[in-house]
C-alpha cells in the first residue's frame, strides 16, 4: 500500500495513471451534470414560497460547498507537501487555488442573482454567510498572489502551504465572528441527512449536482496538475519522451 502510494506520487507514474482515469472521470462528471441539471430544472417541483427561482440552488449551494472544500483540500495537501516534501501534493495545492477561487466567485454571483428576487437586494452587507464567502474570496486571492509573487517554485509552495494552513485555522473564526452580526440568510437547508427540511425530489438533484461539482473539481485539478507537472519537469527524459511521442502511452 505504502509502496503503491509512493509510486503514484512519482511524476511519470502519476502522469500515466491520471491520463488513464481522466476520460472516465470526465464522462461520469458529464453524465452527473446532465442528470443533475435535468432533474433540478425539470423534475424537481417548484418551491411553494420561492416559485421557480429557487432552482438556482443547484448551482449556488454546490459552488459554495466546493469553495470551502477546495480550501480544505489546499491546506491539507499543503501540510502533506510541507511535512513529507511530496512534490505532487505541492503542485495539487498550487493548482487548487484558482479553481477554488472560481467556485467562490460562482457562489457569490449566483447568490447575488438569487438574492435579488428573494431579499430584494443584490448584495446584503449584514449577511454572515455572504460576508464570510466574500472574505474567503480574498483569502484565495492572497494565496494566488503569494504563489505568483514568489518566483522560486519550491519556496512558493512552502509559503502557500503555511498561508493556507493559517487561513484554514482562521476560516471558522472569521465565519463565526461574522455570524455575530445580524443575518438574513435563510437557515441551512441541508444540515441533517436523516430528516432534511427539504423535499426528497428537491434534495436528490442537489446531491447529484454536488457530486458533479466534486468530480468537476477532480477533473480540472488533474488537468492542471498534469500541466504543471509537465512544465516543471520539462527538462527530464520522461517528458521529452511524451512530447516527442516516443513513449508508449
Amino acid at each position, binding site marked *: 500500500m505504502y509502496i503503491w502510494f509512493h509510486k503514484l506520487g512519482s511524476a511519470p507514474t502519476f502522469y500515466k495513471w491520471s491520463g488513464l482515469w481522466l476520460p472516465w472521470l470526465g464522462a461520469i462528471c458529464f453524465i452527473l451534470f446532465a442528470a443533475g441539471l435535468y432533474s433540478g430544472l425539470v423534475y424537481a417541483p417548484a418551491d411553494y414560497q420561492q416559485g421557480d427561482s429557487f432552482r438556482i440552488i443547484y448551482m449556488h449551494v454546490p459552488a459554495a460547498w466546493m469553495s470551502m472544500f477546495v480550501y480544505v483540500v489546499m491546506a491539507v495537501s499543503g501540510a502533506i507537501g510541507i511535512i513529507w516534501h511530496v512534490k505532487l501534493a505541492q503542485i495539487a495545492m498550487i493548482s487548487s487555488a484558482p479553481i477554488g477561487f472560481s467556485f467562490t466567485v460562482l457562489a457569490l454571483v449566483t447568490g447575488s442573482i438569487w438574492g435579488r428576487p428573494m431579499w430584494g437586494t443584490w448584495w446584503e452587507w449584514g449577511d454572515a454567510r455572504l460576508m464570510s464567502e466574500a472574505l474567503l474570496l480574498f483569502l484565495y486571492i492572497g494565496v494566488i498572489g503569494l504563489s505568483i509573487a514568489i518566483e522560486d517554485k519550491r519556496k512558493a509552495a512552502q509559503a502557500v502551504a503555511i498561508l493556507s494552513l*493559517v487561513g484554514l485555522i482562521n476560516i471558522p473564526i472569521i465565519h463565526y465572528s461574522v455570524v455575530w452580526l445580524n443575518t438574513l440568510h435563510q437557515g441551512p437547508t441541508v444540515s441533517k441527512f436523516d430528516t432534511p427540511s427539504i423535499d426528497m425530489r428537491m434534495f436528490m438533484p442537489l446531491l447529484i449536482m454536488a457530486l458533479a461539482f466534486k468530480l468537476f473539481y477532480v477533473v480540472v485539478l488533474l488537468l492542471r496538475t498534469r500541466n504543471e507537472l509537465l512544465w516543471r519537469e520539462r527538462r527530464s527524459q520522461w517528458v521529452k519522451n511524451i512530447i516527442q511521442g516516443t513513449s508508449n502511452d
Partner: protein
Amino acid sequence: MNVFTTILKRDLLLAIRYRAELLNPMLFFILIIILFQLGMRAKPEVLITLAPAIVWIAALLSALLSLDHMFRSDMEDGALEQMIISTQPTSLLVLAKIIAHWIITGLAVTLVGPLLGMMLGLSFDATKILFLTLLIGTPILSAIGSIGVALTVGLRRGGVILSLLVLPLFVPVLIFASQTVNTYVGGYSVAAPMSILIALLIFSLSLAPWAASAALRMSVS
C-alpha cells in the same frame, strides 16, 4: 529567555534611535481619523455609532503600515539569517519581535486611541472600554501580521501583497473589538465579546510565532 530579552531590548533601542519609526504609526492613526471626519461630516448621534469602527480601522491600517519594518531591515543587513541559524528557537525570537513591534506601534495607538474616541463623541466610560479593546486587540494585529511579514519579507514588493494577506485575517479582531464598544454603548454586558477578544489574543500569541518562524525559515533559505 535570554535571547528573548536581548532581541526585545535591541529592537526597542533601534526604535528609539530612529524616532520617525516610532512616531509614524501614531501620526498616521490620527490622520486617518481626521480624514474620516472630513469625509463624513456626520451628526454627533450618528458619529457615536461609527466611532469604534473608525478608531479600529485606523488602528488596523497603522499597524499594517508599520508591519513591513518588522523583519525587513534585519533581512537586508543579514542579521535575520544569523538569528535563524543560531541555536536559539526561532519562535522565541519571533515572539520577541512581535512584542517589540507592539510596544513601538500598538502601544502608542492604544494610548492615543481613547482620546480620539472621546473627540468622536464617546462617553468617558465608553472610552475606557475602547482603551481595553485596543490594549487587548493591537497585540493580536502584531502577532497575525508577523506571519504575513515573514512570508513576504524575501520579496521586493512584499508590501503590496502583505495587505492582501493580512487584512482578511484581521477581520475577527475588528468585529469583536468594535462590537465590544458598541454593546457597551448600547447598555449591555461586554463580557462575551471581551472574552472572545482575550481568547483571540492568547490563541494568536501562542500560535503565530510558530507559523511565522516556519515562514521565516522559508524566506531566508
